[in-house]
């Protein structure tokens, strides 16, 4: 129940002038609805002394809109804090300290949910990015290619491995070329991940060719004492493809007629 209708109206009109409405994140009706929920939530909170579930829900809604609209945390919390000058009159209370404490608590809660929502978005984006950045390509009949780009951590390796192994089973491809030209840092850990992937592929009955071992990577590997002798390695992907074709006893020949075309001979 809203007692101080006058102050309440004043607060609402003040709210309508903030970036929430002027930037079009909320329309006036929505602002009014959220404002009403907020005041009602606060007034029930004043009695119980702790944030009620419905108030929390309202605050979460506000934070989510704040995040989606690209507001800063302070701007988001402003929705709640803008009530400060009016809340005493709205609730017809003289116990300012108590009300302000609760209002602060509510404001901080928007802060918290703001961060939580942000984090959720980041986690989702990371997931999207992972999926985007690990394609498994059917290069030629019986040859798969995995061009790795970016950093290789254990989570990504795991994902690449799963995707690749499933693809091998699905296509029955005996050979896979793993290209690490685009991997920013190749250290012992990355080398280990590569060896693990190779072992898993071998268990399925496939074979892995690692390409993109530049001179600098080769130097690092030797200096760090990483033993890559159990896998086939090549400097450039073209060599890897040539080797793969050789292993499958296939070759690419030039067509007799004008115009080139890939042709496989067995």
């Amino acid at each position: 129940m809203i007692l101080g209708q006058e102050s309440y109206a004043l607060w609402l009109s003040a709210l309508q002038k903030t970036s929430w409405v002027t930037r079009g994140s909320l329309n006036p009706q929505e602002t009014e609805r959220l404002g009403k929920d907020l005041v009602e939530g606060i007034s029930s909170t004043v009695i119980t002394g702790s944030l009620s579930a419905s108030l929390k829900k309202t605050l979460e809604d506000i934070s989510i809109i704040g995040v989606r609209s690209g507001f800063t945390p302070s701007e988001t919390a402003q929705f709640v804090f803008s009530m400060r000058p009016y809340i005493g009159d709205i609730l017809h209370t003289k116990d300012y300290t108590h009300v302000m404490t609760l209002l602060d608590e509510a404001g901080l809660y928007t802060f918290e949910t703001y961060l939580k929502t942000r984090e959720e978005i980041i986690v989702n984006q990371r997931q999207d990015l992972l999926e985007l950045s690990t394609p498994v390509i059917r290069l030629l009949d019986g040859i798969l290619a995995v061009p790795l780009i970016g950093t290789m951590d254990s989570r990504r390796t795991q994902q690449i491995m799963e995707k690749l192994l499933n693809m091998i089973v699905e296509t029955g491809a005996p050979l896979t070329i793993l290209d690490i030209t685009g991997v920013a840092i190749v250290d012992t850990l990355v080398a280990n991940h590569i060896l693990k992937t190779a072992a898993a592929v071998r268990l399925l009955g496939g074979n892995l060719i690692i390409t993109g071992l530049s001179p600098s990577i080769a130097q690092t590997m030797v200096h760090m004492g990483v033993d890559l002798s159990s896998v086939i390695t090549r400097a450039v992907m073209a060599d890897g493809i040539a080797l793969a074709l050789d292993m499958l006893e296939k070759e690419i020949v030039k067509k007799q007629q004008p115009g080139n075309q890939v042709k496989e001979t067995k």
Partner: protein
Amino acid sequence: MNKSSIVKIHNALVVTLQGEIDDRTALELQQEILQSVIRYQVSGVVIEISQLDLVDSYMARILSETARMIKLMGAETFLAGLRPMVAVTIVEMGLNIDGVKTALNLEVALEVLKGGR
């Protein structure tokens, strides 16, 4: 329940592992496989495990040992049809399946055995 089977096809023995295989059944199977190698005079054994959801360290050891025993008897062993997740588990657990050649599926394994490669 153990529903595994051992079948002779051409010059090879096809062992299909199925269902839950406990430690005892695994050993019994090993016995049976070795006996069959002698009985049928095969040159290769294909162990097909596409129906297995789980390969633990004991199973991995049994497989590896069986392969080495078969090798001693002059035949080759192929492991065929590993599931991706099983392969990942084996690698992550650092299990060693030495002496076993792997094939994508039964068909490939039989072809390789037939070709004598």
